[in-house]
């Protein structure tokens, strides 16, 4: 799939909902592929395909335990996303804080009158 192949950075990697679901499922710890298939009710080839993309950008890491392949989330790799979200929220809040201050001033004037 061209889209998956083009997922060269983590932002693109998590643009697709199934991949976010996989990350969510890994939040609490390492899981084998089989368990992800079960939890997400997704066909094994799809899960594997998405895991490969996540693995390529380093959001998940994989280790073998016998015949099982266990995947885990690399929390460190999520930091840039967290930083971005904070920045985006801050930008919104700058405006909304001004609106909030203005609303307070208006109401204070109202009370004084």
């Amino acid at each position: 799939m061209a889209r998956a192949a083009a997922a060269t950075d983590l932002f693109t990697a998590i643009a697709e909902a199934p991949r976010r679901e996989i990350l969510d499922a890994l939040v609490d710890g390492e899981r084998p592929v089989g368990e992800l298939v079960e939890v997400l009710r997704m066909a094994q080839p799809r899960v594997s395909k998405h895991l490969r993309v996540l693995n390529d950008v380093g959001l998940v890491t994989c280790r073998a335990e016998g015949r099982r392949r266990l995947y885990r989330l690399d929390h460190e790799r999520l930091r840039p996303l967290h930083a971005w979200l904070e920045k985006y929220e801050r930008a919104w809040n700058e405006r909304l804080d001004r609106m909030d201050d203005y609303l307070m001033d208006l109401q204070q004037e109202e009370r004084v009158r």
Partner: protein
Amino acid sequence: MKSTRHGSATVEFPSDREVLVTRQFDAPAELVFDVLTKPEHVSVWFAAKPLEVCEIDLRVGGDYHFEGFIMDDDVTTCSFRGTYLEIERPVRTVETWVFGGRPDDSAVETVELHDEDGVTTMTTLLAFKDQATRDAVIWTAPDGVHAADGQQGSYDRTEDLLASLA
């Protein structure tokens, strides 16, 4: 006495082409609605400095146009334009939303106000025509700031994940 702030905004990405911002204000919905839709109010708070242009024709089919210095640097100007599609005072407006004079990147903005005992929850939903458009806009919006320092891409609902990691 100054009332207390009701927290900060939360940003969510309910679908691949939407952005949802939720924020509470310690004010009744009628007042919040006026502050959102009357030019004498909007021009004061919308940007870091009073807006240069602030026109609002508050009726279905009427246009709005805001323009001014969005940041304190006297350099970064910004414009928002659109046309009102629905108006239901004081609970809801729906309008087209064009940021930075790029009509191709337009969205439909739905602002809803929910007043509970004088505390108003405002939700602003921006629905873009597709994911690519949303992503192009949100990496520079809302204030023309490069939110990701030039990184391009997209993501969705990650804050749920991030919150659960905290």
